[in-house]
Every structure is written in structure tokens, then in C-alpha cells.
């Protein structure tokens, strides 16, 4: 187990270096305008100011030299600076808490609600509850996230307050609202994956319910509850855990739309904006962190397998 863990962690190093190099090369190679002109927006950036800033941020150096300077900086704990003079590390330490919190709340909603709905549907196969889960998940999957987001914001945020005086769901994010601030955006963010989790659980559980060992357990006279929870569900959860583990990464990186709608200044929006403005240092920094989240998420998933199914062993 220990050796396995170390091996996996060592494997992560080339992945990280490869990813940063690739991303850095891609932002560098992105066609089009000077990043300093992009900051100036619709007005033409003054040529002298542009030249001074290009010199200051070494934008005129060849690519490999720029990358070398960047990566040596990273190994000294310096993720670089944006072209407006802010530390990339500061940007991420400001943005990360929001995204992490949002992703965690979303993850909990997704896992708990998704698995519960799936289990209920599987156990009441073909009945009303099953149909309800199937239809509602289909609806959630087919409506784009920004529609769900805006509709919920308008109805629960604006109209509920203005017409009924119920001020529970804030329109936009405000830290002082505590967890309440995360509920609506997290639900919106989780909605699609939640639907997948429900459907995956339903299918997987129905499959295992037909397995021999479940029949044996039932024949032994075990209560149905124990059969389902301890015997069937435990095995049925393996594909779901795989999905959830991979999804934690995409929850963190893919929250661009949700974060925008609810004005959460998290990592998704920061990355999207930085790609647009060709702020290489920010993009690489952010992607590096996301790659790490993916790697750790996957490692956790692999370790969880052994917990769920003791036959799986790591050497």
C-alpha cells in the first residue's frame, strides 16, 4: 500500500511538468494580439508604455527562455506576476477558497442526492418513483446550466424576495451569508452530474441485486435493508466512486458558468479570463493546481476501491 502510494506520487511529477510545459507553450503560441493591447481594451495602448511593459515582463524573450524563467520561479515558490502587477499566487489564494467550498458543497449534494435517488429508483423498478427519477434526471440533463442558473436566480433570488419577502437565497454571492450563499450555485453546478450519478447508481444497483451473493444473502434470511446497504450497494458503488472522483476535478475547473451567474470570483472565471487576456503565468498556475486536484482525486478513488471491495489489493 505504502509503496503503491509512493509510486503513484512519483508518477505525478512527469505529468505535472508535461502539463505545465504544454499549457505554457499553447498560451505562448496563441495567435493574435499583444497581451498588453488586450488589457487596454478598445483604446490603442501607447507604444512606449507597451514597450516598457513588454521589457519589464520579458515578453520579448524567446519562448524557451521565458519558460525556463517561469519554471525556475515556480520551484522557488514564485508563480509569477500578471501584466497588471499582481502576484499569481495571491490571485489563486483569493480565488481558491470560493471554488473549493463551492465544489465541496456541490459534491456533497451530488453524491448524497444522486445516490439516494438512484437507490430508490432501483428498488422501485418500474414504479412511480423510478419514473419520476428517470424523467427529472432527463430534464436536468437536457437543460443547459446557464438557463437553470438564471431561472433559479430570478425566481428564488429576486422574485421570492420582492413578492413574498423571503430573503433566503441571495442573488449573488456574499461571504457573510455563510453556507447559504453556496446552496443555490452549488445545486446548479451539481445538477448535471447529479442526474448522471442517479442513473448510474440505479443501473449499477439493479445489476448487483441480481448477483448470486445477493440472492444468497437474501436466502440466509438477512433483513432487506442489510442486503441492500451492506452487500449490494457496496459493490454497486465502485463505478459511482470512479465517476465522483473524476468529477471533483471537473467541478473545480468547470464552474465557469455557475461562478459567473452567481458572481463567485473563483478559479473557473479567473482561468477563463486569463486565457482570453493571454496571461500565460495565470493560466499555467491555475492549470497546474487543477492537474494536481485531478491526480489526487484519482488516487483517492483508486484507494477507495480497496475499502469497498477487499479483494482489490495494492502491492
Amino acid at each position, binding site marked *: 500500500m505504502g509503496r503503491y502510494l509512493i509510486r503513484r506520487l512519483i508518477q505525478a511529477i512527469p505529468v505535472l511538468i508535461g502539463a505545465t510545459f504544454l499549457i505554457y507553450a499553447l498560451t505562448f503560441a496563441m495567435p*493574435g*494580439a*499583444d497581451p498588453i*493591447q*488586450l*488589457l*487596454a*481594451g*478598445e*483604446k*490603442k495602448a*501607447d*507604444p*512606449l*508604455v507597451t*514597450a*516598457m*511593459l513588454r*521589457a*519589464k515582463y520579458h515578453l520579448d524573450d524567446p519562448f524557451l527562455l521565458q519558460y525556463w524563467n517561469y519554471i525556475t520561479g515556480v*520551484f*522557488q*515558490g514564485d*508563480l509569477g506576476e500578471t501584466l*497588471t*502587477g*499582481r502576484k499569481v*499566487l*495571491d*490571485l*489563486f*489564494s*483569493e480565488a*481558491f*477558497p470560493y471554488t*473549493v467550498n463551492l465544489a465541496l458543497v456541490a459534491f456533497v449534494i451530488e453524491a448524497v442526492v444522486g445516490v439516494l435517488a438512484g437507490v430508490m429508483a432501483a428498488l422501485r423498478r418500474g414504479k412511480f418513483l423510478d419514473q419520476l427519477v428517470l424523467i427529472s434526471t432527463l430534464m436536468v440533463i437536457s437543460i443547459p446550466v446557464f438557463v437553470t442558473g*438564471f431561472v433559479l*436566480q*430570478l425566481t428564488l*433570488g*429576486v422574485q421570492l424576495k*420582492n413578492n413574498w419577502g423571503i*430573503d433566503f437565497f*441571495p*442573488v*449573488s454571492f*456574499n*461571504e*457573510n*451569508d*455563510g453556507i447559504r450563499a453556496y446552496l443555490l450555485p452549488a445545486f446548479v453546478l451539481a445538477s448535471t452530474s447529479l442526474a448522471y450519478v442517479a442513473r448510474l447508481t440505479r443501473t449499477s444497483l439493479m445489476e448487483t441485486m441480481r448477483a448470486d451473493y445477493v440472492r444468497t444473502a437474501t436466502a440466509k434470511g438477512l433483513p432487506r435493508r442489510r442486503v441492500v446497504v451492506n452487500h449490494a450497494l457496496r459493490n454497486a458503488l465502485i463505478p459511482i466512486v470512479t465517476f465522483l472522483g473524476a468529477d471533483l476535478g471537473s467541478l473545480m475547473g468547470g464552474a465557469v458558468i455557475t461562478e*459567473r451567474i*452567481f*458572481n463567485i*470570483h473563483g478559479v473557473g*472565471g479567473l482561468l477563463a*479570463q486569463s486565457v*482570453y487576456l493571454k496571461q500565460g503565468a495565470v493560466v499555467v498556475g491555475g492549470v*497546474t493546481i487543477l492537474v*494536481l486536484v485531478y491526480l489526487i482525486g484519482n488516487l483517492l478513488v483508486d484507494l477507495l476501491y480497496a475499502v469497498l471491495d477487499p479483494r482489490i489489493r495494492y502491492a
Partner: protein
Amino acid sequence: MRGATSAKWVAGAVIVAMAATACSTSKDSNAGKSGGNITVVLGEPQHGLVGQNTAESEGAEVLNALFVGLVDYDNKTNEPKLAVAESIDTTDSKTWTIKIKDGFTFHNGEKVDAASFVRAWNWGANQDNAAEGLPFFSKIEGSDELAPGKDKKPTAKELKGLKVVDEKTFTVTLKDPFSQFKTMLGYNAFYPLPKAFEADPKKFGEAPIGNGPFQMDGAWEHNKQIKIKKYDKYPAEGRAKLDGVTFKIYDNLDTAYNDLRADTIQIVDKLPISAMATVSQEFGDRYIYKPESGVGYIGLPLEQNPEAFGKVEIRKAISMAIDRDAITKTIFNGTRKPADDFISPIIPGYRKGALGEVGTYNPTKAKELYTQAGGVPGNKIELGYNADGGHKEWIEAVANQLKANLGIEVTAKPYAKFGDMLDDLGASKYKGAFRMAWSMDYPAAENYLRPIFSKVAIENGSNYGHYVNEAFETKLAEADKATDAAQGLKLYQEADDIIIKDLPYIPVFTYMSSSAYSKTVKNVEVDAQGRMDLANVELN
């Protein structure tokens, strides 16, 4: 920290992050019902909050509350009026004597004196600081020594043209006469700076010490909010009525608008397009809708493509084939006005209908002119625009009108970003017509002419078609020399007439600004640069 891996840093960041968000129990304090606090919309400013380094609207909005310059602009007429300055005098438009009023202090108690302006301008003019406002100091004598150009070192620390006479007086000597200098002084690059700035400009930008009606209430909380509070020692006239204002930072106007509707915030001075259809119904007279400083053009690559656009008749034909009324009404829902001068309607010197015939829709005459002039090569025109700014619809409308009225083939060419189009134009790679816009730096007719159509604007400004006309240059120089305001304005209008005759760009519409505010506040006004006049806002 040598040898620390990035992984370690990331882990650190995540832990710090979690700790930071773990404690968030205090109750929301910006509801604004009592105590005189309100919340207004803002986008994250780009740079530290230093007037000399701010060329974008969001930073300018905050600076406008924290600082006050030598002159300010009337919210209605946009005429310059004295603010910190007691008097601004000149006899030749070249040497200016500026006297400062008593009673203005920085928020740390330091007096606003002549030196605080000289300090600020010297910093802005020095190329080593790479401040966005640098070009504004190029008119002052000695600026070349502070900004000698790329790969060169400044040979002076101070502008030769600035002289402190006494604590309350200083003189400015310009390289050439410039009659609009006083008007220019209201721009945020000319704000004063206290001594504390020099110690650490970067730190200053996070929590600036200004001289305006509001002072910072804590440091700038990036991507979250900027809080300001009333400065009690501000001169009685112009002192803020509210106790405090929170600029809440949004990157999505739709969300800000929904927050306004739920009265979570009280003023939104930039409404999303989605709100335009219903906002007047919902907000009634709390919806402000007025012309602002922007002008939208079709630009023409005169130098890059003389075969197509070299003849003035062709340019006139294109202009007359554009149905400005239809575009502003159907595409923009009346949120733009047809342009009838190169100068914005809010600027002193604007003349209604100045474009005359060429600004009037006349497809028959247009076609006639076009045929007489021999058309464009291949009977084809390209129309470039940047796809990131909501320009597709009106550019396609113009394309269709040109197609229908002139019988030419017009293709709309999208560029991903505005900068991409500028790159191609600069390298003479793009030879089609293009969309263009200008909004003023300061409310002077001159600001709608020189930065866009003069020779110097080819290198430093927005003259992307590389238009050159000596008569125009001479007229501008003449107007610059004027010592009588009315005479000066007349000469700028004559320069405007030359542009109208030559038509290097085709003005299509002027922009309108739209804002709305909640029932809880009153006296909300927005100036021509789209900035809220927060000192006057009161609670109901």
C-alpha cells in the same frame, strides 16, 4: 524558499483558503436602509488605484470618489469648472499659472499644495514607471527627457515645464500652445498625490490616500469589494452626504442588475443588454438614460487600400448608403443615436446635423456617386469587426445595406479580439473597412479630432487608416494657439469641417449610457464618462 515544490505551495494555498472561509459569521452590513451606507456596482479595476496609471473605466470610477482634480466637469454641460484650482490663467495658451484653493487636504491630513501636483505628474511622465497615463504628459516641456523612448534611460527626474512658485502656486510650460489644457486637467492622470505615495507606489495603489470627498475604508479587497467612507475634513461644498459606499465587484452585469432588483445593491451604472427592454417600465424615473461620450464609426483603410477607399466619392457613397435610423432603432432598440457629427453631442462644440448630406440616408445618390467614381476593385468590400463586443448584428446590418444600396458584395469578417484587428491593420495585412469607436478622455472637441485623425495619432492614437491632411493639421495647431475660448472652439469646428469633407471614418452612431437605482436612494447622477457622482447621493 529555495527548493519548495509547487505542490507544497498549492497545498499551502488550499489550507489558507479553507481557513479563510471557515470563519464567516458576521451579518451583512450593506443593506443600506439606515446609517447612510449604500452598495453600488463595479468591475474589478485593472491596476492599483493611482490616477496616473488608470486608463480604464472601473478604476476611474473609484478614483473619482477618492480624488478631486484641479478642474471638474459639469454633469449637464460638461464644461470644465474649477475644483481644487482657485484659478488657471494663461496669456498665450503655452504658459499656465495655476493657483490652488485653501482647505483641501489629503486623507492623511497632509495639505494639498502645488508640490503634490508636480510630484504626481513627474511620476506619471517618467517612462520607468510605465504608467498608462504617460501620453497625457507629452505636451509638457521636458517630457522627452523623462520619456526618451524604448531602450533609452530618462535623463531627468522632473519635468522642466513644471515650476513650483509658492505653496499654492505653480506654473506649467507646454511645448506648444494648447488652448484646451484647462479642460484636459480634469482627467484622472492629473490628480495630485501625497508624499506617502513615493514611499511605496504599489502599496499606495491598494489603499490610496486621496483628496476627494471619500476616503478608503480598509484596503481594496480584490474581486470582492472596495469600501469607502465619507472624509469629514473635505470642504463643506462637495462634502459627501452618505457615510459610506461599498463598490461590490461583479464580472457579470446581469447578476448586478438582478441584485439591484432585489435591492441588494442600490445603483447600477451599466445595464446589461437583457435589461433594456423592460428597465424603463420597472424603474420609471429611477432609470437614467442619456447620451454619453462614445461615437461608433466604420473605419476605412485609406493608406492600406487606396484603390478601394482612396476616392472621397466612394467614402461618401458608403456613408450615404447606411441607414443610421434603422440601425439605431432596430438593432439597438433606441439605445444608440444616429451620428450627425464627428464630435459627440454632449461636448461643447458639437453641431447638430454637421455631417449634412453625407450623414443623411440617400441610397439613390449613394449609388450614383459610387458608379461615377468607378466603384471598388472587384466590386467587393470586407467589413471587419471584433466578435467579442456585440458588434456582429450592426456590422451585418451595414453589410446588407451596402449590398442592397450599392450593389456590391460585402463580407463581414469577424476577428476574435479587437487587438487582433488592430495588429492586422497596423501591419497593412487587412485591407477592408472596419468597425471603430472612440470615447473621450476629457470633454473637448479637440479630443474627438487629434487622437483619431491627426498625423501623430498614426503612431500613438487611433488613426488606423493613416489619414493625413496638412490643412487639418494646420487648423488644429491654430486652434491650439487660441487664447479666446470661443475663437478656439470655432477653429476646432473648422478642423471638424475638413474631416467631414474628407470622411476618413464614417460616423454611424453615438452611444447612450443607461443606469438605474433603487427606491432607497435619490440624487443619483452619472457624468459623461459614466461615473457616478457619489458625493451627492442621499438616502431617501
